[in-house]
């Protein structure tokens, strides 16, 4: 199964330079064969929310919901079970400061045969 590990943290909080830790983590994930994809996101003040209502496109500044901890990035991993996904999630450096949401991915035919 694939799981999306969504990294939420408080952007206003300084947790020091986590980059070396993130690089080591990503490398370990890659070496294990579990890494499917990963990206860091620009800060939430760069977010734009788009809606289409009655055929009209409405564009607003900022994320759809303002929260203290915002989505800062993600890993997409292949794991045998939720326990394995939880193990990987717990090793993400930001798990110590913010939180990681683990979401199973709905697998469609195209991905299954790929």
């Amino acid at each position: 199964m694939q799981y999306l590990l969504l990294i939420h943290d408080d952007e206003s909080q300084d947790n020091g330079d986590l980059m070396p830790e993130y690089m080591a983590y990503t490398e370990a994930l890659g070496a294990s064969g579990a890494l499917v994809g990963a990206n860091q996101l620009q800060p939430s003040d760069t977010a734009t929310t788009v809606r289409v209502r009655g055929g009209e496109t409405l564009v607003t500044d900022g994320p759809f919901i303002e929260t203290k901890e915002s989505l800062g990035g993600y890993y997409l991993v292949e794991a045998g079970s939720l326990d394995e996904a939880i193990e990987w999630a717990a090793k993400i450096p930001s798990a110590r400061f913010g939180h990681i949401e683990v979401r199973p991915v709905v697998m469609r035919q195209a991905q299954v045969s790929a």
Partner: protein
Amino acid sequence: MPTNPAGWLVTVAKNRAVDRIRRDQTLRRKTELLIPPEETEPMDDTAIPDERLSLVFACCHPALGIEAQIALTLRSLGGLETGEIARAFLVPEATMAQRLVRAKRKIRDAGIPFRVPPDDVLPDRLAAVLRVVYLIFNAGYGPPVRHELCNEAIRLAAMLALLMPDESEAHGLHALLLFQDARREARVRDGSLVLLEDQDRALWDAGEIAAGRRALERALSLPARGPYAIQAGIAAAHSEGASDWAIVAELYARLAELEPSPVVELNRAVAVAMADGPEAGLAIVDAIDGLDEYYLFHSARADLLRRLERVDEARAAYTRASELAPSGVERDFLAGRRSAL
């Protein structure tokens, strides 16, 4: 008990797949391919012990809410139907059915594994399983008493002790539940609780106490004794002809080391007062922080002050306890003590 609990747990997954096919015929073939083969094959009815153990760890997985863990455990490993579980927890049957369906879906869709967890996480996960069984027992212990829940909890604890014979806490929990259940006829009189020291010991179930002792002995013969074994030890110390307060006090001290809490400390103080006199108990009570809103804290303190003949302070403490008491029964009791000063 469903004839095939593991099969029952995954049925919802198949039903859901069927719904999907009905909704969208074009997805039919794809959907069938999406269901892993082990989930489309019904499991064998003769579940071997390891399967029951895998099932209990899936049902008590921390990714499920505690209410769902309790309901799933009772439904898939206990002997209760959905309606019985709903009545025991005072929720409509439809609500309970919904809770079960949702939990089963999460097990399937989130990939909660059916397996005994590896050693590095086993202690935490076992503690979660034992907690579910303990909560089932407490829900039945009342008042109002619901025997079917107590019986299920004891049966589950016995099963866990049987399947994990090397886990001290599984035996410890089994022992604790047996000791507590043994007092069920003596602990409620006319609808209200009877304190342990006021219970008619002739009403205690001697057979269950003996079984509790055997389970406790097994718990104590193994390493890694934990809070359940210690609490069972306390219950055993109360089950002699008269309570052995020195041992009870010592065991509460050990429990406080493992799970520090002001309530455990209050229990220790009461035991110390019984063993070494009210002065020693009061010293511990007065060092406790954080129970100022707890009526039993003030009633225990009042009782010690009364025995020390510090009447004015005792009166004030009874008054405070009475203000915080949860119901009229306790208030009447405290008022009686206060006016007897």
